[in-house]
Structures are given as C-alpha cells and as structure tokens.
C-alpha cells in the first residue's frame, strides 16, 4: 500500500517535471522556428553553408574550362589599362587557333579601346563562338556593339546582404524590364552542351526552371534554404562552387601570346578571358571557395572565376551528374527542425546523469553536422543552424535543469540531516533528559533513597535505548505517527485534538513532582482547524505541547490547578497551558535566550520554531498571583509553506 503510494507520488512528480520540461522544449522549438521565419537565423545559415562548402574534399580541376587571367604582370607588360582592343584581338586569335569550344571575353567593351578596335570588332562579327558581356542591373553597361545578341551574356552576379557570392543568376530582365537576358554562364553552358547534343529545355519538377538533359537547374526562391525574403533575379540557382585549391586551369595572357599554351589545353574547352589583378576591382567575396590566383586576397574570387564556377556547375551536372545545390521543401525543413528539437528533449528524458547527457549532446551534434555535410555533398542544403540550435538548447537546457535539480537534491539532503538531528535531540530531550534532570534535582535536595536511585537509573537506561528506535520509526516510516514512548504511538492522521489529548493524558501520567500536587485540571480539547498542517507540523505541535506540560511538571512547584486549552479563538488556533504554581524563578527557562543549552531553552526553541513555521506567536509569561501561562497561537490561513 505504502509502496504503491510512493510509486504514485514519484510518477506524479516525474510527470510534472517532464510536463514542464517538454513544454519548455516545445517552446524552444517554436522560438527557433519563429526566429528562422523572421530571418533572424539567415546570416548564421549562410555562414554554416559557406563553412560546409569549404570543408568538402577537393575536386579535380574542370577539364572543360580554361581561364586566361590577365594579371598585374600582363597589365605591366601591356603598359596600360584597359587593355587595348588590339591586344585582346591578338589574344583571341591565338586562342581560336587552338579550336576552343567557345571563348568568353569577361571584359566590358561597350566602348572601343584603341588601338585595334577594328580588329576586335571584326572578330566579334565573324567568330560565332566568341561571347561578350553586358551588365543589366544597376548602372547598365552595354555589350560590344559588333557582337551578335546571341553571343552576349550578362555578367551580373547576385551577392547576398553580407556581400558574399552564393548564387548564380541565369536569366533576368534588363534594367528597363523590356528584354529578358541570359547570363554569360548560361550562354557558355548552352553553347558547350548543345555541341554535345544537349540542348536547353523546360524543367520537369519546376516548369519555370531550365534543364540540360537530366540536369535541372533548381530555381532560387525568396525562401530557398536559409534565405528569407530574398529578391533573386528572375532565374537563379545556388552556386555549388567547385571545391579545391585549383578548380580550374589558369594561364596568363603573356603565356598565350608567347605561345606557351599548347593547343591541347585549349581544344574543345571553354576559354574565359578575364582580369585577375587586384588593381582592377573585379572580385567578389566568397569564403565558400578559394581563388586560384595568389594575388587576390583570401575570401574573394575574381569575377572570371565566379563565371567559371557558374558555368562549370551546369556543364558538370549535365555531363557528369555532379549535383546542383537544392533545398528541401519548407514542411520538410521544419519537420527536421522539430525532429532535432525533440531529440534534444529526449536526451534529458532518457539519460539521467549530466555526464551522459553531455556525451549525448556531443554525439548528437556530431551526428547532425555529419548528416548535414553528407547531404550537402549530395547537393542538399538542409537547415543546420536551426536544428543545431533547437537540439542544443533543449539538450543543454535540460542538462542545466538537471544540474539544478542535483543541487536542489543536495539542499534537501542537508535539510533532512538537520531534521534528523533535531528529531534525535527532541527524542532525547523529552525522554531521558527529563528523567536525568529529575534525578539531579532529587540528588541535590538529598531526598533520594538508594533503592530509588537504582530504579531511576534503570529507567533512564531503558529510555535511552528506545531513543534510537523511536527516532528511526518517526523518520523512516513517515506513517503519520508520533512516538511518545516505545509503546505509545500517536496517530497524527486522525482528529488532531485527539492526538493532543493523548499527549496530555500520556504526559500527565508521567512521574513529575509538580504533577503530584495538582488537584484538578480544567481542560478544553475542541477541534482545531488543521488544513495546511503537515504531519511534521503536527508532530512538532505535539512536541511543543508535551514540552509545555513537562515544564509544568518540573517547574510549577505547588501548583494545584492546571488549565489546558486547545481550541479555536477568533479564527485562531490556540494551544494554552496555564498553571498556578509558584515556579522556580532561577530554573525557569528564559525567553530571551533561545540558543541557551538548558532544558527550557530547548523547549523555547521548539516553540519558536513551530510558531515561525505556522506564522503564529509563542508566548510564555508569569501570571498573578502566581503561575505561568504558555501559549501558542496561529492563524490557520497564514501557514508558511516550504520553510
């Protein structure tokens, strides 16, 4: 019965903990989701993506692309910038001799740069595989005048709010919304792939997306992946940079002009000509990949490199099945977030020891990172940061809560220990110590015959031996009993005035000198208001009452009457013991010294402690003409909880 009740209490307590714990955990998940929805996690998700992208294993250089980077030395060799059209024409002609698939000139040539602009214009007109650039957004820059429209691609790159490049624009309306333009990367890829029999087609999953064979280019949407309220170009895709230190083969203009670039390195390749000199501001921030050009500062890549990446990812996807960067649908993303949040809660639920939870936390985080990384390698950009946040906050939060609980347990243990000590002293004090003090006073006054000596000592011996049992019973059983003596157990669960009466009956039957002169007792034991009284309160009230009566027995010399009142007065519970004895002033416990070690002091201590716990008042005073009144009064509505 008692076991079942204990189990029940345990279950109830656990339920409360988990109920609040899980509620908190769900709130954390909701908060993280809200944060993500409002864009609060956008920057963190970008950083996470960059980091994971950078961590990918290196890919070999793209065999289909060659970059001709005009570096600072080239510019020095030419002696001026912009590079004159004649130089460029020479460069293009040299390259064309190697039979490339296409040549892209990633330099604005809306205005001729003499000398030699006629040569370049002629090339523009005559070479069907020569592509040039324009700029369609912002301050628009026109394409070279002589270049056929089909060979013009825009070079605009869409950077994020943090200035970093993660996306690749494929198509966009020009500045006055009059014409739909295609990007340089798309033009090059289309040219390159159509030569291999793969032409551009409508998307299958997304009819507005572009598709080259099996490679459908996922369109970036306003809320793609970690993005919130993005305003992308009309057609855009995420940029899955080619990883590695040397994603593309690169040569300089000098090398080409000097004939140092063998025609095999050019044949059937896409050749992109662009400036890679830091002196020309054509660089983009990107920490997701590294530039192949030593002169360009870390964290940035040259514009021509960006175009190479954008082109390469399309070609490689179409030809080699290299993944393109996609995201999950929103429901799946949030399901993922909730899954990890719940796993975090689960940590605290299934693991109890803080160390185990920490280990679980670490394992969980590593698993999450590994999963996200693996998925990224397969081309999936999954929400890492929100999941990590929900998992960590829930896991670590619960860990912290457990640490707190552990500390609370420690506090309770200390309290319990203090309680045991107090209890033990109470038991000693109300039994053996009383006998001892009686023995002492009799010895002092000299009226103790030797035969009584022995019987009293034997009694004392017996009392001392029962202390252990009675304390153990009271503390361990918690069965609502108070042990007045070894054989006298009090039921504290019944009407409380009955328990008090039993204390009265038991105590008055004890062998105290001053009880012997009593002629009669006037008693009132009316029902008290006991709501709010714990078993412990009741136990201490009984102890207090016993102590008050004992004091009469010990100190109320010559008392003939005893008045005991336990009743309700004006809404207060009152326990009052009044005697008409002379009392012994010298031995009388002093009110002002609750810490003193004499017997009465201990009694006062009990009384004041219980009075404090009940939010009541304890008084002990002398009355006229003679006698002492001891009173404990408390308002049952004002009991302090959890003291």
């Amino acid at each position: 019965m008692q076991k079942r009740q204990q189990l029940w209490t345990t279950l109830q307590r656990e339920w409360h903990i988990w109920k609040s714990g899980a509620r908190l955990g769900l709130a954390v998940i909701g908060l993280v989701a809200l944060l993500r929805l409002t864009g609060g996690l956008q920057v963190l998700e970008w950083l996470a993506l960059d980091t994971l992208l950078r961590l990918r294993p290196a890919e070999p250089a793209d065999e289909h692309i060659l970059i001709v980077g005009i570096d600072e030395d080239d510019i020095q060799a030419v002696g001026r910038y912009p590079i004159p059209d004649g130089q460029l024409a020479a460069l293009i002609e040299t390259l064309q001799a190697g039979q490339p698939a296409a040549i892209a000139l990633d330099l604005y040539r809306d205005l001729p740069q003499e000398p030699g602009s006629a040569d370049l214009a002629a090339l523009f007109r005559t070479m069907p595989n020569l592509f040039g650039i324009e700029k369609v957004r912002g301050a628009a820059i026109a394409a070279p005048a002589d270049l056929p429209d089909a060979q013009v691609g825009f070079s605009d790159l869409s950077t994020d709010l943090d200035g970093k490049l993660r996306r690749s624009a494929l198509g966009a309306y020009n500045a006055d919304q009059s014409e739909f333009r295609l990007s340089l990367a798309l033009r090059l890829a289309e040219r390159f792939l159509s030569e291999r029999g793969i032409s551009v087609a409508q998307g299958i999953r997304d009819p507005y997306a572009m598709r080259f064979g099996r490679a459908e280019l996922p369109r970036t949407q306003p809320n793609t992946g970690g993005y919130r309220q993005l305003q992308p170009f009309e057609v855009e895709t995420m940029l899955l940079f080619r990883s590695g230190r040397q994603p593309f083969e690169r040569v300089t203009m000098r090398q080409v002009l000097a004939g140092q670039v063998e025609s095999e390195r050019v044949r059937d390749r896409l050749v992109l000509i662009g400036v890679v000199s830091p002196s020309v501001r054509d660089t983009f921030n990107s920490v997701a990949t590294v530039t192949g050009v030593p002169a360009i500062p870390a964290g940035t890549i040259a514009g021509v490199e960006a175009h190479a990446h954008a082109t390469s990812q399309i070609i490689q996807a179409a030809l080699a099945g290299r993944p393109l960067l996609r995201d999950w649908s929103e429901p799946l993303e949030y399901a993922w977030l909730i899954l990890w949040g719940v796993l975090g809660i689960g940590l605290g639920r299934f693991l109890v020891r803080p160390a185990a939870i920490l280990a679980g936390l670490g394992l969980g985080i590593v698993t999450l990172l590994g999963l996200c990384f693996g998925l990224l390698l397969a081309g999936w950009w999954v929400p890492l940061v929100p999941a990590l946040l929900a998992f960590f906050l829930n896991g670590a939060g619960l860990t912290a809560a457990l640490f707190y609980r552990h500390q609370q347990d420690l506090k309770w243990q200390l309290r319990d220990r203090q309680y045991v000590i107090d209890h033990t002293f109470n038991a000693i004090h109300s039994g053996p110590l009383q006998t001892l003090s009686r023995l002492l006073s009799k010895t002092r006054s000299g009226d103790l015959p030797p035969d009584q000596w022995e019987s009293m000592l034997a009694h004392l011996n017996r009392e001392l031996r029962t202390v252990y049992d009675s304390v153990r019973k009271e503390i361990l059983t918690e069965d609502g009993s108070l042990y007045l003596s070894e054989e006298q157990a009090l039921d504290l669960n019944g009407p409380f005035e009955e328990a008090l009466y039993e204390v009265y009956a038991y105590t008055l039957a004890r062998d105290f000198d001053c009880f012997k002169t009593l002629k009669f007792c006037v008693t009132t034991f009316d029902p008290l208001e006991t709501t709010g009284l714990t078993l412990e309160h009741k136990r201490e009230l009984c102890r207090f009452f016993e102590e008050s009566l004992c004091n009469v027995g010990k100190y109320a010399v010559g008392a003939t009457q005893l008045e005991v009142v336990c009743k309700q007065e004006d809404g207060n519970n009152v326990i009052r013991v009044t005697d008409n004895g002379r009392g012994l002033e010298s031995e009388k416990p002093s009110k002002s010294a609750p810490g003193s070690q004499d017997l009465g002091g201990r009694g006062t201590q009990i009384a004041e402690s219980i009075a404090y716990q009940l939010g009541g008042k304890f008084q002990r005073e002398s009355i006229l003409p003679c006698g002492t009144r001891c009173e404990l009064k408390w308002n049952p509505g004002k009991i302090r909880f959890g003291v």
Partner: protein
Amino acid sequence: MTRALALDPRTSADKSQKRRSQMTAALALKLERERRREAQMAESSALKKIVVVDDHELVLNSTVEALKQQYADAQITTAQTAASALAQIAQTQPDVAVVDLALPEQAGQTSRPETGLHLLRTLMQQYPTLNIVVQSANAKSLVRLKPAINAHEGGFIIADKSLSLKEMLTKVEWAMQGLVFTPKEMRTGLEIKPEWLEVLRLAFQEGLQDKAIAERMSVAERTVRHYWTQVQDALGVYPDTGKNNRIQTEIRAREEGLID
C-alpha cells in the same frame, strides 16, 4: 371529589349544578390525561429500541438474550460490522447502542479496535444525543476519544468486557438515562471542563436550579443536566440507592477543591 360532593348541599341548586358539571369535566379531563400518559409510558417502554454491535456471534447472542430478559418488549436489532451498524442505527434510531470496540469494517475483514473507534467517532458526530454503551477489554484505547466523549450530549458508558451480566444490564440502564461512565484507568487525575465547573459554582455557591443555570449559561436545560452527569462521572458519583446524587456531588466537589 369527596370534598366537592360534601360541599354540594351547602351551595345553591343552580350554582351547585353548574359547579358540579364543571368539576366533573375537569376531573374527567385529568383522569383522561393521566390515563393517556400511562399508556404513553407503557408504549414507550414497550418500544425501547436497542442496537447491539459485536463481531462475535456468541457474544452477540448472549447479550441479546440478557437484554430481552430485562426489556421484554424491546425491539433489538444486531449488527456484526461497523458498516451495518451505521445502517441499522440510521434506520431504527435506537434509544441505546451497545457497541463492541473490536470490529471489522465489512464482513470478512479482520476486527480492529481502530474500526470501533472510528465508528464511535462517527456515531457521536451524527447522533449527538445517542446513548452509547461501549464494550471493551482495554479502556485505555478509548483515551483518545475523551474530547469527543466530553462533547457528546447523550449517555456514554464504557463497560469492561469482564463485567457480570447483571452489572452490564445496569450500565445499559444508566446509558438509557443519559448517564456517563468512564473507568478509572481512562483518567489522569481529576479532569474537568470549564463548563462543568461553572455548573457546580452556580448550583452550590449561588444555589441556582437547573433552569436558572441554563439561562445564565445560555444553554438548554438538558445540556445542563448532561453537564451534571459528566461532572458526576468525573467525580465518581453514580446512582446509588439511598443517596442523593446532587448532595453527593457537592460533597465530592468540595473535597476536590472545585468549589470553595
């Protein structure tokens, strides 16, 4: 009557005629009233209702037998569990309930004094004027009921199980009279309630009668009478042939110093 008839010739015919008829009517009324009262008393004694509660069938039967001999016309019902005792008492509203302390709650359960204690507590709460006789082998276990017994307004007798049948019947009779009897071992010295002290003071120091005492204390007269039985129990004054209870009480109270 004789006197009235003797007076008759000395009065005038008219007047005497009128008077006689008046007196005859009054007499008839008085006689009728007396007869009715007697009939009532006979009826009430005939309809004495007793409930006996004991878990042992043998004990139960012997108690019932003894009671039947004493109260030939009494309606005696029995119960063997606390639950059925409550039901019986609620149904029959008895003059007296004779209750054993060790009882099972339901049939088939073990008998425990706690159950009997709880039954007594409930009975005193629900029927504040019910007369109760408790049969117990150990009166000490009843000590904790003392506050409730003191508050109870009906007779309350604690009868030791070792009492002879005759003594037991006396105790039942006492209970019917609303008396209170608690054995010595239940007491620690002389213990009285403030109200009892007040009754003693008003009666023996101010010489008041019960009715006046009731008025002074703002309680019912029957409550005062019950205070008397309670203080008499405390002082050990019980009905005894040839002794006046009130005087005995005064003597004992003065001995104990309850009144000066």
